[in-house]
């Protein structure tokens, strides 16, 4: 099918003409659209309510190389808003069907689906993308992708982020009539972890209320889910995605509600309470996704300044929307620069502990040390100290799998203004003289 001459007319209006509120590196011209279509690679995380919208929006905005990852299969209840899916698709992987449907409708776009968990992919998989768009519904998953994206971030010796190491993210989220869209440029704008306190704590009912004095339908459901299930199914764990399990919890909740004369237990409420589901609204998803796709286009092409950096939308009573500029957490363990240390490959863990105790920027005593999930040394409790003590005589370089530079985390006591306080720090370790590079080359992430 030949591409009609006017197909990109609207996009070209953004990409061909200079402007005043564009990004400093914006270079308008016909080449920009070609580059967008050739070099930009987007990963869409999640192919649910937001993901479907994002895929459609990105494809129609000129992005051609898109991947989508989602571990879920299509359910009947998705069909009211996840508009890429049809009744006959129920049971099929969301990522695969979504990719196929958008490719059928938008010529020239190539979408590669990944039907798996985000944790199943290697870091290399994520490093291939120029931008990551998040359409997720959980804090865990966002936190994970954020940590992955931030792991590519490198700083120079003056603690400035290296432009080419920044993996931009746009994150969308909706709950009923409310939503947010945010731009995360690790090293420049706050990362997900810098502002994790924005999330309200989850509502959890006291177990004894559930067991003794239920007052609401939700109490009855949680009783069946958290207490009765274990009592009856010894050892078998509850699976929220198994309809039989859900049905069992529902019927037990109904019995419980009858016993206490509480109205309102329904199957869909049971699903809602157990899986923490808030009814999703198609229009909210569409609005939030549109904002995210537009930001992705702006980040990639520079055709306009980006949203700075957190948009909230509320359509509950009329319409309210606002953009707030959140600030970075200076010492963020995930996106912050940490303290740069250059070491010889011969430095043992013991020697390293002495070094960070004397280092003027650290003055860290009694440190415990971890490297990528490996516990290198623990001061306490005694059982862990004993298990890790043998590492003290080993070279840190060996303990860090002979990687020439990487991040490790230490926690211990530091004395600031004569007051001792406990702290948790990120250190960027660079080993001197590896691969014939000069120290400075490596420190600046050549």
């Amino acid at each position: 099918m030949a591409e009609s001459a006017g197909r990109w007319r609207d996009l070209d209006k953004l990409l061909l003409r200079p402007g005043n509120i564009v990004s400093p590196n914006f270079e308008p011209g016909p080449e920009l659209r070609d580059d967008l279509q050739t070099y930009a690679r987007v990963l869409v995380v999640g192919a649910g309510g937001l993901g479907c919208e994002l895929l459609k929006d990105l494809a129609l905005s000129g992005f051609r190389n898109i991947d989508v990852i989602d571990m879920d299969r299509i359910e009947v209840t998705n069909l009211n808003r996840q508009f890429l899916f049809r009744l006959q698709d129920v049971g099929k992987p969301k990522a695969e069907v979504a990719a196929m449907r958008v490719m059928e409708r938008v010529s020239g776009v190539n979408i590669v689906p990944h039907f798996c968990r985000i944790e199943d992919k290697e870091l290399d998989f994520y490093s291939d993308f120029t931008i990551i768009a998040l359409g997720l519904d959980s804090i865990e998953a966002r936190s994970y992708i954020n940590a992955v994206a931030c792991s590519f971030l490198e700083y120079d010796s003056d603690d400035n982020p290296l432009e080419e190491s920044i993996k931009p993210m746009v994150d969308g989220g909706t709950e009923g009539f409310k939503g947010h869209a945010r731009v995360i440029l690790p090293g420049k704008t706050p990362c997900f972890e810098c502002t994790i306190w924005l999330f309200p704590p989850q509502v959890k009912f006291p177990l004894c209320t559930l067991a003794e004095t239920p007052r609401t339908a939700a109490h009855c459901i949680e009783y069946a889910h958290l207490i009765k299930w274990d009592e009856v199914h010894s050892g078998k764990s509850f699976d929220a995605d198994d309809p039989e399990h859900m049905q069992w919890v529902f019927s037990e909740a109904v019995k419980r509600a009858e016993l206490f004369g509480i109205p309102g237990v329904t199957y869909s409420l049971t699903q809602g309470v157990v899986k923490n589901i808030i009814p999703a609204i198609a229009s909210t998803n569409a609005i939030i996704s549109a904002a995210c796709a537009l930001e992705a286009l702006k980040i990639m092409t520079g055709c306009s300044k980006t949203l700075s950096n957190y948009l909230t939308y509320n359509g509950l009573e009329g319409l309210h929307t606002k953009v707030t500029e959140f600030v970075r957490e200076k010492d963020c363990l995930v996106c912050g620069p940490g303290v740069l240390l250059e070491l010889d490959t011969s430095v043992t863990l013991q020697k390293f502990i002495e070094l960070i105790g004397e280092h003027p920027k650290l003055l860290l005593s009694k440190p415990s040390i971890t490297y990528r999930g490996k516990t290198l040394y623990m001061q306490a409790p005694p059982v862990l100290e004993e298990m890790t003590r043998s590492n003290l005589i080993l070279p840190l370089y060996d303990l860090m799998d002979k990687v020439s530079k990487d991040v490790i985390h230490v926690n211990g006591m530091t004395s600031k203004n004569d007051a001792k306080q406990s702290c948790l720090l990120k250190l960027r370790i660079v080993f001197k003289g590896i691969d014939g590079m000069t120290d400075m080359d490596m420190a600046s992430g050549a």
Partner: protein
Amino acid sequence: MIKLFKVKEKQREIAENANGRAPVKKQSAGELRLHKDISELNLPKSTTIAFPNGKDDLMNFEVTIRPDEGYYQGGMFVFTFSVSPIYPHEAPKVKCKTKVYHPNIDLEGNVCLNILREDWKPVLNINTIVYGLHHLFTEPNHEDPLNHEAATVLRENPKQFESNVRRAMTGGYVNQTYFTRCIC
């Protein structure tokens, strides 16, 4: 940004051959915070901690409490802790592995402790929880019952409660329920 990626595309091979990134394992922010909590633990002397999966899995561990006073003196109670990657945004999941006759712990090991659920705050830590659990043994509380029967006995007949606890801890039946011995 795009220009950057055109350049990057060309550099990729070079970069890949140079010092390879170690993609071993991602450490979550929750793990880091937990690591700090663990290294700063200041446990009551009646308490011990164990890591059944070894030193590289701190997210799952067991705490053993041996109350040194009260109804449960002489008993030994094991709690399993399972910590989420978004800790401390979410409280650890704590269960009692030892079957215990206790008003605030049911026979499945569910524990009614406010800071484990409705009153959890990210400023709390593992130490706080351990002290909270310890407190449950020194001050069992009939007002927040999970084991309704035990709570009733504690409220109405503390002497009977005391002898029920003894019988359960030495191994035996209390009403229709069998408890295995947990006196050390």
